[in-house]
């Protein structure tokens, strides 16, 4: 599918994202019941967890595109990998901020170093923050694209480690909502979570396409400027 035909769907997808976010907020505040233990602050969960999952997905997407770049050496994959990782850090920032607020509300502290999942997510986030330092310290060209791609691929190893840390290390601080018995919440809560997850996923895809379109336009303009010079 061509870039222009993909971009033509962006306004419709943006409208869908807006509708889903609106529906999610209505479900979170007017339908989903209040948690018996944590009270109203538990409602942070409905956006915090989908945002964290989206951050993982963006890092994974960035690594996949990095692999495709190393394989095919097409500049477009480098750009797609960069945009994926950039969005991953935006969603990672949101995960850390909303998680920290939720931690203060539930545990009385903004951060705890004794939770493996928290620390591993921070390591993953800082690893990908360093990606930008590496990328912008090397002159633009195939060398920069290859170095960035290799770095992005190394980082993706941390994604499953961070995701499964809570289950592997018996983390008692960070709650485990999804385990082998299924989601540990009521049907209404789970439905609200699924809608919010869908909303964040569609929103992330729209942000990805808009940012990528901007980067591609920037690239084409540079080529045009060189041709007209």
């Amino acid at each position, binding site marked *: 599918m061509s870039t222009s035909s993909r971009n033509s769907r962006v306004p419709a997808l943006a409208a869908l994202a807006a509708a889903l976010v609106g529906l999610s907020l209505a479900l979170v505040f007017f339908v989903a019941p209040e948690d018996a233990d944590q009270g*109203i*602050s538990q409602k*942070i969960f409905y*956006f915090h967890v989908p945002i964290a999952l989206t951050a993982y997905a963006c890092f994974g997407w960035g690594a996949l595109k990095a692999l495709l770049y190393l394989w095919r050496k097409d500049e477009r994959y480098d750009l797609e990998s960069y945009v994926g990782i950039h969005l991953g850090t935006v969603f990672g920032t949101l995960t850390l901020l909303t998680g920290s607020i939720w931690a203060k*509300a539930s545990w009385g502290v903004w951060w705890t170093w004794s939770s493996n999942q928290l620390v591993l997510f921070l390591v993953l986030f800082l690893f990908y923050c360093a990606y930008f330092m590496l990328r912008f310290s090397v002159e633009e060209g195939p060398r920069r694209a290859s170095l960035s791609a290799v770095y992005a691929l190394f980082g993706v190893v941390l994604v499953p480690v961070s995701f499964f840390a809570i289950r592997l290390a018996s983390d008692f601080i960070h709650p485990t909502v999804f385990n082998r018995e299924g989601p540990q919440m009521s049907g209404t809560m789970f439905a609200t979570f699924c809608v919010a997850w869908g909303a964040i996923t569609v929103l992330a895809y729209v942000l990805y396409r808009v940012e990528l379109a901007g980067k591609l336009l920037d690239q084409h303009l540079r080529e045009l*400027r060189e041709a007209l010079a």
Partner: protein
Amino acid sequence: MSSGEKYLAAAYGVIFVVLLLWVVIIAAKLTRLEREVGELAERARERRDGD
């Protein structure tokens, strides 16, 4: 407003502010691209008139 409600409002507020910031950055970029396209169009017109 209870403390739980304050934290909930803060968490959703943070999401809103970060997304708004993203829109501001993209809008600034779009403005720059628009200006650059205008400059290139002007240059192309000058070149055509020169020929």
